[in-house]
């Protein structure tokens, strides 16, 4: 019997250094060079070489705010992707359309409110009802999609549910197109006035068309403000969108981490079969996940429509893809990660084209480029934990 050698005698094999790993992997090498190149171009534009910088700080600040607003909408959708992926390790391609459904149903709600005069008399209530109806209808659509398209295929081979998801996404978009027509519809202008005593400070900007000042209009207001030397154009709706998505994210996080059914959800995410053995009703948990994802996407839809004022059956597709990118960026399956990913993507997408001096046609190229870079360098995303092969 050979003597059992003791551990210490062995010379440990040092893990290869990060740099040498980078050199050996050509794909990472090339993308690193590209990233470096872009960074240098950005630096050249920002630094005030000969005279004023190509890219002014206040321009950066304004675009940062736009980016954050757009990013929080991406975040709300991305949360839906992360939840569903966590539970079923499947991308719910139709999630973009569920977002659109919320925006569209919100439109019918707010127009009905306008017709019945509620919008004029009590805008806050009307806005609340619109948000509620938007969220509920998205949840209903999400549950229907899960019930019809995903449940029967729960343990089919990996490719099958993915293809059903693509089919469901196209079908949903076309059903809305056939039912409600392709013409773009407009959310009516609505004013939500708060803090009337801020009137004197607002000066002329606070006056609406009737000439009197009723406070800060959270939805439609535009105010020029100079903050630490940067003259910025503040739209209160930006902060409303950002605040609401943050609040919803925190609420979701608390639900998942602090409640009983949240615990069940995490159990199912970990291992569906074992969770079932522990008495967790897996089907009900999955349905709740889709409902939560739907509610968040619906909220995102209504906020999006209030912010961009236009709704059509086609608005769901592109934001849906971008939101997936955000979810992967943040680390799929990780709730704060989805929020961060959404904001990060929103900002980069808005700021990068002008900072690099490119035309904004390339906005989507930057978004998809970012996705590829993340998957090359850190497939598990910024906050994600290493994807074990089981769920990878």
């Amino acid at each position, binding site marked *: 019997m050979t003597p059992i050698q003791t551990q210490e005698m062995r010379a440990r094999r040092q893990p290869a250094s990060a740099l040498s790993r980078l050199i050996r992997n050509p794909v990472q090498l090339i993308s690193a060079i590209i990233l470096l190149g872009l960074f240098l171009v950005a630096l050249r534009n920002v630094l005030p070489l000969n005279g004023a910088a190509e890219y002014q700080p206040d321009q950066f600040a304004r675009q940062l705010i736009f980016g954050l607003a757009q990013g929080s909408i991406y975040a709300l959708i991305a949360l839906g992707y992360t939840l569903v992926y966590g539970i079923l390790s499947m991308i719910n391609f139709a999630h973009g359309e569920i977002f659109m459904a919320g925006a569209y149903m919100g439109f019918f709600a707010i127009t009905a409110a306008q017709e019945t005069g509620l919008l004029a008399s009590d805008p806050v209530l009307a806005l609340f009802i619109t948000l509620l109806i938007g969220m509920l209808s998205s949840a209903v659509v999400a549950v229907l999609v899960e019930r019809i398209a995903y449940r029967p295929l729960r343990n089919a081979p990996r490719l099958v549910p993915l293809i059903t998801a693509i089919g469901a996404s*196209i079908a949903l978009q076309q059903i809305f197109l056939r039912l409600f027509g392709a013409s773009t519809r407009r959310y009516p202008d609505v004013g939500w006035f708060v803090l009337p005593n801020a009137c004197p400070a607002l000066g002329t900007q606070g006056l609406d068309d009737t000439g009197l000042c009723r406070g800060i209009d959270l939805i439609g207001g535009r105010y020029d403000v100079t903050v630490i030397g940067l003259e910025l154009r503040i739209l209160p709706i930006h902060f409303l969108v950002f605040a609401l998505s943050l609040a919803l994210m925190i609420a979701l996080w608390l639900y998942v981490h602090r409640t009983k059914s949240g615990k069940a959800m995490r159990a199912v995410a970990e291992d569906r079969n074992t969770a079932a053995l522990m008495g967790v009703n897996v089907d009900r948990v999955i349905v709740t996940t889709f409902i939560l994802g739907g509610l968040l996407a619906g909220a995102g839809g209504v906020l999006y429509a209030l912010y961009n004022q236009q709704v059509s059956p086609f608005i769901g597709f592109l934001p849906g893809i971008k939101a997936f990118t955000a979810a992967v960026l943040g680390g799929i399956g990780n709730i704060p990660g989805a929020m961060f990913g959404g904001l990060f993507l929103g900002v980069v997408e808005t700021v990068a084209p002008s900072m690099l001096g490119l035309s904004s046609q390339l906005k989507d190229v930057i978004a998809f480029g970012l996705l590829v870079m993340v998957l090359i360098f850190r497939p598990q995303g910024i906050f994600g934990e290493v994807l074990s092969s089981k769920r990878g």
Partner: protein
Amino acid sequence: MIRAVRPALYISAAALLLVLSGVLVSFQERQVVAGAVSLNAALIAGLVLAAGMLTAGRLRVRSGMAVLQGMIAGVIVGLPLVLLVLLERLIDLRFVFANLTQPVGATLLFSLELVPGLLVFFSSCLLVGALGGFLSSVSRRTMRITVFSLAATVVVGLVADQLDSVIAPVDGLFIGLALVFGYVGSDIFGRDSFWMRLLLGLFNGAAIGFVAGLLAASGGLVEGGGLRLGHVPPAIMILVPGYSLIILPLIFGILGALGALMRTTPRMISTFVHYGGVLVVILTLLALRRGFDTFDAVMVLAISAWAFNTFPWRIEESVRQFNGLTVVQRRVVRVAVYCATLLILVFAPAFLGQYMTNVLNLVGLYIIMGIGLNIVVGNAGLLDLGYVAFFAIGAYTIGLLTTPSILTCGGVPPEALSGELVLTTCTGIMNFWQAWIVAILASGVGGLLLGTPVLRLRGDYLAIVTLGFGEIIRIMLRYDDFSPVFGAAQGIANIPRPILDLTTLNPAWYFVFDSEASMYYLILASILVAIFVASHLGNSRIGRAWRAMRADEDVAQAMGIRLARAKLLAFTIGAAFAGLGGALSATRLFGAYPDSFSLLVSINVLSLVIIGGMGSIPGVVLGAFILIGLPEVLRELSDYRLLAFGVLLVYTMLVRPQGLYPVRYWQASAQALSR
């Protein structure tokens, strides 16, 4: 109880969607049977019938109860529609449902007043529901025959105006005569020996052919001639007028022989002849009647009922017989089938006319791309949503190399050159064939480059990243700053059609591929090459490696398959096929325009691969004909093509994941045959 009624609920929801989407308005004037049945009526009746059959079918009850069940289903579908019509009177639906250009009532109530209209509509729903219920209780065979012949009549009614010029009545007449004479003649005299029967059939057919030749030579068939019987020029006259007295007897002789062998030959050939004859009869009927009214409808219903009656039995027997054959016989049959289809494909443009050939060309392009994507998705299991990027690379390479562009004019953008200068400086312009090879190589390399970063990704990640690549390339092609190279939003125009200049061999051989038929042959040749390459690859060691990789990547690696190399190979070959198709599409459309390379193309190709049957080449061909050909022919349905794709994708995955023409069947038979 609820479970039994669930199909009726689903169908009732579908009916509501149909009505609210305003589709009935655009279908209203589309007549299936002139004067009697409009497309609306056919659709609603079809839905109610299906609801009746499904509900009653589930409960497996005696006919009495079944009829009642059918009625209940009729109510479930009819009632919401009636309520909708009433609701419409109260509030204006047009604001919410924008597509309702006309009130729902007008389309549903057979243009009667409100109350009588509703009564007529509701009672007809009950009646049709009851019929559905009754059908489900009767024997399965009769149910299948009635349903299939009704469906066939509706389809023929819809497509009648396109099919009335496929066969000239005179041709149909002579083909029918040759078959009948061959069958009857050989039956009476040469009953016993096979060769005797064959000879007689041949002789009778040749006699018919001779008569046809005489008729053609006599000029009776010319426009306005007495025997023209219709406006379509008969093929007899077109085929080689000089030698008609030799060619025609030969062709009709073969037909006579086929007629003669109807009884004795293996079931397959007789089935083929049997249904070929049925098709010819229907086409001749349409060509004669030039319209489709109630009489035609009844005729087609009767013919299809008779045909479907024997259909399942004939198919089972031919499959049984086919399996019983020895290996050599099977190889002969396979070669015979291939030759027959090739023959039909070669003569198709002459029969179908320019418009149908144009449709076939579009279907052909999608077949080429489908075969390419089938390798990537069907065999290797890599869900590629950015396939249109390689299609675009192929098209733009042809565009750049066969027209004055920055590549062919030595780096000088052509706008800067005035007219004459272009001729002198742009010496780099290639002819189509050279550029085609470069296009295939370029898209192959594109596949390699785009494949490398995604090697380690799986399933959904891969789908999204390839979708991203597709979008990146589409945006780059349309990007303003690249306009001297790619022409930005204008794309590249004036791409010439291919010219085959064989004047060195024989001064007369100078072919310009400018007509639809010439492009058809070019596309047909490309498809054959594509099938040749893809099936050989699929059946080889590499094909097996791909299929293993698709089933279980880790185990495949344990079998010695280098995953990176296999995936890259699949990507490259798939991309090369797309490049081949892209080049043909660019020259066919005389230009490469950025709008025609949208994500929609990738989804179209993906749908026909998946619905056709992942991994099966005949599945791709079948998928292309149904998903691309049908909407082109039924143009008013082309608006609902995307809706149909979406629903079909979900339906296929739920009910028939292996697709319409599953690879299992194809591969097993291919292997069996190849031994």
